[in-house]
């Protein structure tokens, strides 16, 4: 069965890029536009890995990660943070919220796919 990846990003460009990259690597893709939407999409699905942006309207990536981790069903879903920001404090905050990994945008497709493979159980 194909592995399912949920991508959460407010940029349509980024969502499309991620989708193209993930589909070509043989993953199935679910998309959400911000944290709130991400939790909604998550509630009806069972992704193998979640990719999320940090800076988003309505609910940012930190809030989203916390939201995911609060839900017992999704405690063990790896979350990869994908963001343009690389400051250590932000990384640390994401880790504390429960993020599994961190990739700086723009991403190298090969690196991203490697990272997802490394995370997907």
């Amino acid at each position, binding site marked *: 069965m194909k592995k399912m990846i949920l991508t959460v990003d407010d940029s349509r*460009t980024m969502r499309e890029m991620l989708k193209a990259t993930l589909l070509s690597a043989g993953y199935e893709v679910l998309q959400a536009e911000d944290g709130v939407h991400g939790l909604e999409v998550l509630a009806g699905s069972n992704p193998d890995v979640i990719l999320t942006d940090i800076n988003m309207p309505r609910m940012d990536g930190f809030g989203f990660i916390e939201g995911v981790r609060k839900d017992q069903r999704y405690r063990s879903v790896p979350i990869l943070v994908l963001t343009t920001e690389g400051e250590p404090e932000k990384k640390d905050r994401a880790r504390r919220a429960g993020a599994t990994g961190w990739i700086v945008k723009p991403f190298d497709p090969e*690196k991203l796919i490697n990272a997802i493979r490394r995370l997907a159980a």
Partner: protein
Amino acid sequence: MDTMAAIKQTFFQECEEQLIELESGLLALDGGTSEPDTINAVFRAVHSIKGGAGAFGLEQLVRFAHTYETSLDLVRSGKIAASRSILKTMLTAADTLADLVRSAREDVKADDGEITRMVQQLESACGLGGAHEAPVAAAAAEPDLDFTPIQVSLDDLFGGAGDAKQSYRVRFEPKTGFYSRANEPLVLLREMARLGETQVTCDLAKLPTLAELDPEGAYLAWDVVLETDASESAIRDIFEFVEFDCDISVEKIEGESAFDDDAFARLLSLASSDTQAALPEPVEPVMQKIAAEVQSRNEEAAARKAESAKGFNTAGATIRVDLDRVERLIDLVGELVINQAMLSQRVAEARIARSSALAMGLDDLEQLSREIQDSVMAIRAQPVKPIFQRMSRVVREAADMTGKSVMLQCDGEATEVDKTVIERLTDPLTHMIRNAIDHGIEKPEARLAAGKPETGHIRLAAMHRSGRVVIEISDDGGGINRERVKSAAIAKGLIDPDAQMSDEDIDNLIFLPGFSTASTVADMSGRGVGMDVVKRSIQALGGRITISSTPGKGSAFVMSLPLTLAVLDGMIVSVAEETLIVPLTAIVETLKPSMSDIFHMGGDSRVIRIRDSFVPLIDIGHVLGYRQEMADPSNCVIVLIDLEGQARRALLVDAIQGQRQVVIKSLEANYRRVDGIAAATILGDGRVALILDVDAVVENADGKSNPPSPDPAPLQLEIVE
């Protein structure tokens, strides 16, 4: 189009949206909002553009967006106050960003000097200059560091042909937090197994008793002997995301192979099962506790979901559709409406009773076709907001150029108009706004002297009014200087020096071709365009423009436009055996003339008395060249029409056939523009009928009878009386 090209297109579309978001946010801040969401949205817009630009390697855009983002971050975090002057700089930077996006889209290199200038302006405004050594270089270099993806060749990873295998001893011991971040030792073991042969040993030494066990605690450690031709860094990469959550050691084992018999025996004895067995099994009491917890969380989540669903619904679910598809649909629906009309006509010709099932079924079909058409048109309808927003830049630039202080107020931005109409509004609006600033708004000192606020005020408003969209541009400037306009028109030979003209007539002179008063900034109002061009482009849209002005108080231009360029409500008339459509919006009333109301003015000119006024009579058949002789009004019908500036004309037609909505078909697609004709349509009998361009016909008629004066008719009426 390949995927990347398609995504790039998406990126530029998104940039346009972000730029609008950015500008409206900044304007809202300038207007005094203190909503934290606003500055966040502004920041995010630039952030998003930078992110996408990085992905496509648009260096100039990344470089500028980076400084811009940094500056905005200072405002967002409250390190610098969102003062008027800061916001002004931010708005100018938004314009620069928009220019850079455009350059990137057109694949043109932007002027580096321009970027550097704006970067420096931002830095000095935000006090960034000193903080950064060589800020431009830093801004450019940082994305490079962060963004340049490292191309990892699989050959490097998994070893070229000549590489000998090497054994490593890897130990990793997860710490608290490892599992709560959804890390999974099995996955790490699997990844190591991808690199080569592994011997895995699970160290259970720290495993507590069941009672003390925290299901998310970390108690186990793994020892792995890995024989691989991959490099040590490839092994460490596996632990990239867990380096803080476990103790990791990777060491080379010297010697040919670590797979000695001893180790192998140990491995066998360890477990006659796979690595799965080395993991703790779910624990009963803990699971119950978790179940209870899950229950309560689920309830919370359900409540939260219901709440967020509300927010989601208000945003409205949308899909994106290729415009070609929509246009194809609109065309097809147009055909449907024409076909249905043809059918109705055939049925009417067959003298089938209106009460028959067939006729009633057709009525329903007509109703349905109408509704389908309206719904399809609505797909292409868009709010005027984007174009209004573009005007705020026009205002800023024009104000800067003229040294005036101007504030733009936009109302009715949500008013929706067909996309094709919106697209063709930018140029006329831009020109009128520039004109209002250049000619309308006074210099600050003049305003103060006149007892007005220093800052001029321009209002741009849109609204729907009786099936049309009305756009109004008003300013609180000096109003039209009628003396100057009149003398300029006389000097240019546009009017007779002795002409007696009402204020309104004088105001309307500015729409005459060839009229253009001196401009303070030569290239600004102008760019070689006058108000006549504005008027013509509005007319080409099937719209009309009127002006009203009060000296010392300001001027207002009002445009009335069709909601769509696809259909039009028209009156079907017969003229010299031809069938014509007169747009309903122009028509005031129709009437049967009495000969005693018609007066000859000499030559071909005639007027008709309608109640207390005399209105010039235009024989449509004659003007369009359908007949040589002037029609006899006693056998005709008068269609009274309204022109801009309240001028009226009486169009002479042979008969009125009825009213209906017609589908507009371009004459230009397969032929060209025809003077006096706005477009064509297809009638119920399948024949083409022409749609009258009322303004052009009036212009032609006026031109024939009274060349020098634009609108002399009302003046002559008094002589008749």
